[in-house]
């Protein structure tokens, strides 16, 4: 390799290699998020047809409102879940955190507007502490994220089951108003809050040090550590953000239901559905690759599916069946693609190698 005679073809080769690598990589990256929105478009078209068959309009004001509302809660939770999965962990505790947050917030508000600030701070602080504990378990004690979050979730569910029976407290009128408000009757405020969260988290992932560290640690924690990244803080931050976002989602739920419920989270199955949405959105379950934009696409697919099944009055149990099928099929399409994907230089050498090796041998 070090021979000077081979230098000229070598550099040409490397340039070609780099050129070959770049557009291909760009195309692939476009493909990964574009694919999920392509699937979404397909689902929407199918839904429009099916809704029309039922004699109703998918794009009616009320229906769009319903779809966007359905997206907002799962969306916020899935954004947090994206962060946690990106960093190579997992959060199964979200349903219990959501339930706990609704109970604490509703209990704190007691139906009075004056209590809102204190209740909000209380709720989100409790969520943040739960996230903090989980993050420390994962990062300092090296407990697998699956177990840490499952354990924390069980602990919280035991607390909820022991101390709360039935609905608890009541939401303040202002919060309920928020749940009903929106822009022009088309876009609910809850959806805007979710969108704002998505934009903020995307900006954080793209432009801040924390965001880059999240990807680095998710890709390979040991390599990140040896490269000088402090691995504890980003993992903790991801878990805290996830739990806080679950708390915000719980407040949105509360704004609609009006009372805190100790079972609302586990009824919604937010743990498994949010993970499914994240993976559907193209984020690798092993961490290190993915985006919030994709996750929102995954959430939208679920929301549209749910909506059309609601319009068609599908049996609620059959809904789960359809959901399960969609998850496996969609991810099967996607996972095969992402397995082929690898860091550009490896991808480039692989595609160019057969030609280059024969060249070098002949030279």
């Amino acid at each position, binding site marked *: 390799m070090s021979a000077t005679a081979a230098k000229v073809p070598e550099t040409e080769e490397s340039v070609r290699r780099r050129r070959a690598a770049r557009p291909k990589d760009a195309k692939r990256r476009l493909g990964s998020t574009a694919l999920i929105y392509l699937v979404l478009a397909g689902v929407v078209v199918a839904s429009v047809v099916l809704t029309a068959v039922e004699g109703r309009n998918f794009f009616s004001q009320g229906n769009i409102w319903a779809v966007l509302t359905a997206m907002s809660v799962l969306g916020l939770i899935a954004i947090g879940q994206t962060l946690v999965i990106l960093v190579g962990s997992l959060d199964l505790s979200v349903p219990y955190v959501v339930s706990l947050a609704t109970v604490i917030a509703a209990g704190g508000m007691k139906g009075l507007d004056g209590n809102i600030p204190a209740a909000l701070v209380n709720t989100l602080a409790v969520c943040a502490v739960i996230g903090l504990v989980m993050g420390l378990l994962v990062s300092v004690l090296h407990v697998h994220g699956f177990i*840490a979050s499952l354990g924390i979730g069980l602990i919280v569910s035991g607390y909820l089951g022991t101390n709360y029976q039935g609905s608890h407290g009541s939401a303040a009128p202002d919060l309920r108003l928020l749940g009903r408000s929106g822009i022009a009757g088309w876009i609910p405020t809850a959806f805007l809050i979710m969108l704002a969260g998505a934009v903020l988290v995307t900006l954080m992932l793209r432009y801040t040090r924390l965001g880059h560290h999240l990807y680095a640690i998710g890709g390979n924690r040991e390599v990140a550590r040896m490269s000088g990244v402090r691995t504890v803080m980003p993992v903790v931050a991801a878990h805290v953000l996830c739990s806080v976002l679950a708390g915000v989602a719980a407040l949105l739920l509360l704004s609609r239901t009006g009372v805190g419920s100790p079972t609302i989270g586990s009824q919604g199955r937010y743990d498994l559905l949010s993970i*499914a949405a994240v993976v559907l959105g193209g984020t690798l379950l092993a961490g290190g690759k993915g985006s919030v934009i994709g996750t929102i696409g995954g959430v939208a697919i679920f929301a549209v599916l749910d909506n059309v099944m609601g319009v068609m009055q599908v049996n609620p149990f059959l809904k789960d069946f359809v959901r399960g099928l969609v998850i*496996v099929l969609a991810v099967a399409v996607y996972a095969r693609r992402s397995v082929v994907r690898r860091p550009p230089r490896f991808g480039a050498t692989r595609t160019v190698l057969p030609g280059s090796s024969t060249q070098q041998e002949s030279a």
Partner: protein
Amino acid sequence: MSATTTTAAPGRSLPATEGSLVQRALRGAVTPGGAVFILVAILFLAVVAANPSFGEPPQLIRFIGRTAPIAIAAMGQYYVIVSGEFDLSMGAVIATQVVIAGNYIGQDEGRVLPALVLMVAIGAVVGLVNGLGTTLLKVPSFIVTLGTMLALGGLVRFLTGGAATGNPVDSFREIGRGGIQDVPVLEVLPYPVIILVVIMIGGVLLMRSPFGRTIVATGDNPDAAGLAGAHVWWVKTRAFMLSSLSATVAGILLVGYAGVHPSVGSGYEFTAITAVVLGGVVLGGGRGWLLSAAAGAFALELLFSFLNFQEVESTWRPTVQGVIIILAVAAAGRAWSFGRRPSRTSPPAAPAPPSTPARPGTETGEN
């Protein structure tokens, strides 16, 4: 196969195989896989101290019978976890089998055997789907089994309307409920205990066979196992099938205890994972013993019995379960290196290594 040559190399033996039997047993007890047996013993003594009648053989054998389904499920989950995957579909499989038993058999004695064949076939097919989805379609097992869990669970609830339906003939329920009467010390020897012991022995023999060694090797490092000649996809698929078949057996036993309702078995997957993890088996694969997984299930049930006798409200059960698994895993992450290798700084509790970086090198080697 290849695994047997690596475990007993003639030149330098592993620390785990040195010394006398007592020394090895002591050293094994320090690992999380061995410590769970000590935990079971301590919990047993605690329960007996709280309620002396629990220690009497008839009571004890009934307790073992009650715990058999969860221990069998935990052993099934063990195969999947030690191969580096998850099986979340277990609870749904149990529900499916229970409902099939309730509705297909009915009051017809003649249908018991065909039903058993049907249930085993369904269990095998679900495991096959899970395994092929994970290995050939390359979907993470968490997602595949989540999908089968939602699909199966939804289907079962749809077909039954979410309510208890059907009632299998008593002779079928006897499998889970009955036992051999008039046994000398025990009064009664429940069938679940016999089934559990048979499955345990079979499992231990299986884990000592080439297939068992290959499962552990695959969980430790799928690429290395593949290069050593193992058919990774088929090994993992069989692990999933074993898991679903174990869930099937657990379901058959549960029909006797719990009756026919689509919610039977809900949450079993997480309880089984908890038991496996409590048994010191490392999530991510490659480390842990089969019997430790079963012991984990017994430890969990003993703990719940203990809490019952202490008159702790049953609503606190999940909390205790949560605290225990976190503590167990936090301790296990440190301790596995202790029993296996003399000195290693990084704990082996890290998740399964990503397979992509190793691939380019191997493929250029083929060119």
